[in-house]
Each structure stands twice: as C-alpha cells, then as structure tokens.
C-alpha cells in the first residue's frame, strides 16, 4: 500500500487568509470571532461569528459570477496549497479533488430566495445552479488545475472535511490517483445560515469556550482548508518538500440519536484511525479535538478520549475558540493546526478558557500555546447524524 504524505496546505479563515498568518494566530492564541456584519444580522439573536473579513480575493474577474463564497474560499486556499506543493497542474487523470462542505452555496440560495420571495422578482441569475451546487468548489479546482481523476464533494455536516480527506487518502492508497487536493470549504455565515442554527439553541452569544466551565455553546465560522495529499513515491520522485504523513483514517456511525453524540462511536473512530495508521496511543503527542464548546460534545468527547487513551491522555485542544466552527471545512483547518504541532513543535491553545470543567479533560492547553515535540497527532470530527471521522498524522 502506498504511503500518503502532505506536500502543500492552504487556508482562508477568520484569523488569516493564508497559512503563515494562521500559524501566527494559532501560536499567539488570537481570536477570530467578532460581531456579524452581513445583511440583516441585526435581526438575529446570536450576533457573533468567525467571519472572513476584508475579503477581496484575486480571482479571475470573468469567472467571479460563477463563484459563491464557498468556492472563492476553496480556490484561494487551493492556490496556496498548490503553490506550496510546487505543483502547477497537468496531472490529468492521476490528480483529483475531494472537498467537504455542509451547506454548499447557501449564500446563493439565500440571495435567490430573497429576490423571488421578498423582493417580488420573477427570475434569478442563470448561474444560480452552478453557483450553489455542493460540488462547485471541487469542480472549479479541478478545472483550474486540470485534475481529471476522482473529483467529488462530500457532505456529512461537521465531519465533511475529515470524511473528504479520509476518502482522498483512500484514493491514493488504492492507486486511483497520485495527487489529491482535499479538505473543505464553508460559507454559512449569512442570515439564513445563522437563523437555522439559532433554532437548535446551541449557539453561544458571547464566545466559544471549549472544555471550559461557563461555556455556552458553539460559534460558527467561515473559511476553507485545502491540503495536497500525494503518494510518497510521487512526491519523492519530484523532490517535493514533505510536511507530514497522512497515516490513518477511521470513520464510524453511532446509529443512535440524530443530534446527541455517543462517546462509544467517537472512541471507535479514534481507535480505527490509530489501527489504520499502525499507531500506538503512546505515540500520539497531540489531539485536535472536535471541541465545539457545547455541553454535550465536550463531555462526550472527553469521555471518548479517556476511553481510548486511558487516564493520562496527551494534550487535547480545540482551535474552534479561535477560528470558530467552520462546519464542513473545520476538519481541514484543524488538520492544518495539527501540522503546526508536527512541523513547528507548537500546540495551538484552547483559548477563552475560564476554568477546568471536572466533567471534561484536564489538559486542554488553556489560553497559551505550548512548545512540544510531537511525532503523531489525531484530528477529530463528529457530526450531527452520529457520524465520526478521525485522521491520524505522523511527522516525517
């Protein structure tokens, strides 16, 4: 079986619109959450989020009418990842794209509904369908870079990006491609997107405080993470710089409640990822948690981690307190946080932490980043619908 490595990464999120800026923000423990600024935000109960601010991307202006924000984020992150990997395209059928998104072009849905329902217009732009389809970000990356192999979108709510990366890993292992662009993109911060989440009563009005006493829920974020997964032999043959190994992937389903998490399902996914990576629990020096900051997730995930790792687990942090919960993209941004640990020896902190919750894990690297030599990490994602997807990364 071919080993798979990461040769490039790119991101757009509320902290920064590139990897160096995001790494710096993680190391400083900066918070990207602030007041929502989109149209009609004043009609919401929850008025904070991790928006991508000052967004003026340098994309082909003639193509912009085709690009919902969810696609724009993916294209900018994808360009950074491809440049870092030293790839210009031309991979043909040996290259592919698998990207996660939960809501796709929700902003385009909203604008179109607003036009016909609220403003009484009788028609919408002819480009509405290609803008809003979930596979638009993956397809546009495929078009721009000439990737003609496996290209598709994956939608599994908050686990979309981890599922996408897991499937990309499997494509290369199976010999279906040499290079896969993968990760996720999300642009849910619009009136309808937040209004829908408000109904579940799980959004925090003030801050995201994962694993902390005083936490009041999650905060939605926008953004994208795109990673270049590449067969190790292919990367070495062209002399590419290798950032880390994509060592394993595990996915399970709770087959229980549609929203309430089950620690057993989460634990099984972590164990499956470790087994797939041939990695011992003692090898893992850092876990990037799902860590949404909800009462239910943080308790359930803590129990699952203790079940897998025993009473003294490695440091676990949730970077969502910084970049928000980027839903279908979040796993990709968090994989990049794992690479900060693996390549720079910095554990990104769990910020906005007030006091340890005795029902949660104790070492969550509160508020301040920590230096640590890490040779392996896990990255958790657990979705509504009872879907669990965990990736294991290893230093090269």
């Amino acid at each position, binding site marked *: 079986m071919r080993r798979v490595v990461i040769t490039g990464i790119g991101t757009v999120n509320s902290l920064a619109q590139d990897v160096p800026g995001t790494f710096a923000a993680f190391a400083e423990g900066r918070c990207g959450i602030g007041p929502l600024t989109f149209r009609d935000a004043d009609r919401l*109960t929850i008025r904070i989020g991790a928006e991508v601010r000052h967004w003026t991307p340098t994309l082909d202006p003639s193509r912009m009418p085709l690009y919902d924000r969810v696609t724009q984020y993916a294209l900018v992150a994808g360009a950074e990842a491809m440049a870092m990997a030293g790839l210009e395209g031309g991979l043909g059928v040996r290259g592919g794209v698998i990207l996660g998104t939960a809501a796709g072009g929700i902003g385009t849905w909203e604008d179109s509904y607003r036009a016909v329902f609220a403003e009484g217009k009788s028609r919408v732009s002819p480009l509405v369908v290609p803008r809003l389809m979930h596979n638009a970000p993956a397809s546009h990356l495929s078009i721009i870079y000439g990737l003609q192999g496996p290209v598709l979108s994956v939608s599994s709510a908050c686990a979309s990006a981890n599922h996408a990366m897991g499937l990309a890993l499997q494509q290369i292992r199976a010999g279906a491609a040499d290079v896969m662009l993968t990760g996720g993109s999300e642009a849910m911060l619009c009136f309808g997107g937040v209004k829908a989440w408000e*109904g*579940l*009563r*799980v*959004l*925090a*009005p003030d801050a995201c405080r994962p694993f902390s006493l005083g*936490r*009041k*829920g999650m905060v939605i974020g926008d953004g994208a993470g795109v990673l270049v997964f590449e067969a190790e032999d292919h990367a070495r043959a062209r002399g590419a710089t290798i950032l880390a190994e994509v060592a394993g992937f595990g996915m399970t389903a709770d087959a229980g*409640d*549609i*929203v*309430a998490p089950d620690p057993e399902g989460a634990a099984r996914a972590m164990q499956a990822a470790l087994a797939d990576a041939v990695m011992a629990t003692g090898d893992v020096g850092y876990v990037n948690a799902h860590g949404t*900051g*909800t*009462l*239910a997730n943080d308790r359930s995930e803590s129990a699952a981690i203790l079940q897998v790792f025993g009473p003294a687990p490695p440091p676990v942090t949730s970077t969502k307190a910084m970049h928000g919960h980027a839903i279908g993209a979040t796993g990709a941004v968090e994989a990049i946080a794992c690479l900060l640990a693996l390549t720079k020896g910095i554990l990104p902190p769990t910020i906005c932490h007030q006091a340890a919750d005795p029902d949660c894990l104790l070492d969550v690297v509160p508020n301040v980043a920590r230096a640590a030599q890490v040779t392996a990490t896990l990255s958790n994602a657990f979705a509504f619908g009872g879907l669990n997807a965990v990736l294991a990364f290893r230093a090269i």
Partner: protein
Amino acid sequence: MRAEIEAAVIETLAAQLLLPASEIASDARIEDLGLDSLGKVETIFALEERFEILIPFNANEPDLPGFEFATVPDIVDGVARLIAERT
C-alpha cells in the same frame, strides 16, 4: 389566561410526545413524560410562536434559571411571566 396557557402547554407537549392531551396531567414532570432534547427545543419554539414571546433557553445551560422547564406548572409560570413582560 392561566388556564389558556396551561391548555396550550399541554397541547404542545402532547403534539411532541404523540400522546392525547388528556394523558398529560396539569402537574406532570417533563422528565417523566420522556421528552428528548429535540422535543424540548421544538416545544419551546412552538410556545414562542403561539404567544409571540422569546424564551431564554440555551441547550448548553440547562441549569440556568432563565426559564424553568421541569414541570408543566413551571412552563406555564414562565410563559405567563414572559407574556406579562411583553405587554
């Protein structure tokens, strides 16, 4: 007014629990009725719509006293208070 609110609360709970309203006592404990967390959120939403109120409830702070949801009388009291505050 209180009787109307109580009838509405019981009717809303009954719709969520797929029970006849007659099977929900006016002093029933919500936990004993077997309402799950989504049912609770849907019940709160239905009461908000019916009475044009905003019920302060966050699923992450079940112990906060913003709105007591333990029994039918608790809910009736809470709704009555919010209606009074609205006017």
